[in-house]
């Protein structure tokens, strides 16, 4: 055992595991209150008050909802594929947790689980695995609405993944690294857009004009990848009952829900890292975690705001938009950004 403890690889793995367990615990709490926030904000957008009965200001509503889901009877449809029906909800939450191992939540090394030099690729790999939960959940339920929801989501997520991957490329070209910590560190300092004017902006991605279009594309694909409105076609109630999770009940259904909210947090974190300077902000470096959280929660609010503001797209509109607008836009911007970066480096 002593020899094992001295092993450096083992030490790294052990600390990564400890940090991930802590993150998982915090995430569960954050998700609980993110759902509460969603219901509250939704209520106010619709001119209601939202949950306000259980506990002060309704703060105990979602914890008690979780208890309700835990003790509820679990139902498995007769024709379901038993194993896959159980595996799918587990797969819904796994990619989000795995991605969190590379997200810089504060100055390294304390607030980063691991900093690998292909961090952004790990995010893309995990988000591409996320589609399995929905496809399998839909297929194994042995229900035509669930199957249609699952097939829709696989088509949707594959289509929007491409635009998402291409919209990240200008950011990578700017920073010259795929490590998420490296991308954040590259956004340190101030940026003066006009040499003659005394305007100094943070050197974040969002303040550089050639990253505006990638930012908009990334923002749109964020909604599609997390299956949130206006891209929540896999669970369109009007057409598909509840889509891929029609047959799910109690805690298994809650796992899908958990996965959706965890994915929201992860994908917003990536957006903060790529375009908003991650943990960078005014003040000492020890405030890094605070700045990261402020930016993250602003984006999460935006997520909820959009959900209760825009109507759902039609399926053909969704596909046309993804393939004929977002994808060519992302490719065109890569060309423009390359030309600009080359010109700036050589002129």
């Amino acid at each position, binding site marked *: 055992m002593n020899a*094992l403890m001295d*092993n450096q*690889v*083992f030490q790294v*793995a052990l600390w990564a595991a400890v940090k991930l367990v802590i993150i998982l615990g915090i995430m569960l709490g954050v998700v609980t209150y993110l759902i509460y926030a969603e219901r509250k904000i939704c209520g106010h957008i619709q001119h209601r008050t939202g949950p306000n009965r259980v506990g002060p200001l309704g703060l105990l509503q979602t914890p008690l909802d979780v208890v309700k889901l835990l003790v509820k009877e679990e139902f498995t449809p007769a024709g379901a*594929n038993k*194993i*896959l029906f159980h595996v799918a909800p587990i797969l819904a939450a796994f990619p989000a947790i795995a991605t969190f191992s590379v997200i810089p939540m504060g100055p390294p090394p304390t607030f980063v689980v691991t900093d*690998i*030099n*292909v961090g952004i*690729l*790990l995010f*893309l*790999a995990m988000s*591409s*695995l996320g*589609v*399995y939960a929905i*496809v*399998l959940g839909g*297929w194994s339920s042995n229900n035509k609405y669930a*199957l249609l929801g*699952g*097939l829709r989501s*696989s*088509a949707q997520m*594959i289509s929007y*993944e491409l635009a998402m991957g291409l919209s990240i490329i200008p950011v990578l070209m700017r920073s010259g*690294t*795929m490590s998420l910590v490296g991308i954040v560190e590259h956004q340190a300092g101030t940026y003066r857009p006009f040499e003659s004017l005394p305007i100094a902006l943070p050197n974040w991605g969002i303040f550089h004009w050639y990253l505006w279009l990638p930012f908009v594309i990334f923002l749109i694909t964020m909604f599609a990848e997390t299956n949130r409105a206006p891209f929540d076609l896999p669970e369109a109630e009007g057409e598909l009952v509840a889509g891929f999770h029609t047959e799910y009940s109690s805690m298994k259904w809650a796992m899908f829900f958990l996965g959706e909210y965890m994915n929201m947090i992860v994908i917003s974190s990536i957006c903060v890292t790529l375009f908003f300077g991650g943990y960078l902000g005014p003040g000492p470096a020890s405030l890094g975690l605070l700045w990261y959280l402020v930016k993250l929660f602003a984006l999460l609010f935006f997520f909820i705001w959009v959900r209760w503001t825009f109507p759902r797209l039609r399926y053909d509109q969704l596909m046309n938009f993804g393939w004929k607008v977002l994808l060519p836009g992302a490719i065109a911007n890569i060309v423009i950004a390359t030309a600009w970066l080359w010109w700036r480096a050589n002129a």
Partner: protein
Amino acid sequence: MVPGLFVGFGVLLVATAVMVILHRNPVTSALFLVLSFCSLAGIYLLLQAEFLGMVQIIVYAGAIMVLFLFVIMYLNLQHDVETGAQIAVRRGIGWMVGALLLLFGALLVHRGWAPGPVTPAPAEPAVGNAVAIGRVLYSRFLFPFEITSVLLLVAMVGAIVLAKSRTAPNDSEAA
């Protein structure tokens, strides 16, 4: 720890690959293939080829296998509709290919082939994996790289032609 992980991923890879051909349900087979791609990616990581490992997951497990699953679910391949003769022919070919592969493996072992150190030193420790691959891809292997992209373009055009020719008669019927 690294050799232990290598053995773990290796066993997982072989076991899931065997399950792909042994399982009767095509959807489950496809999922075992996803698992075996993921364990292959793990082995790439142990070889310090992290770029390759991630691309393996993105391309194979994330894109190609989802498409496979999509097709399997769409066609709902539950029953084997082939006749006995077809299965016999297929089995014969399978035995032959298997015997050839076994012969090849035996030859490798006979020639004294053995796994080297589990994690060899990377060729260029100063630069990252992606940088090294990019350099080689756009200099030494530029021609094969470009040819591959042309090949993909041809496949894309072919797919569009096939899709067009199938929808055209339907349109005229409707009109």
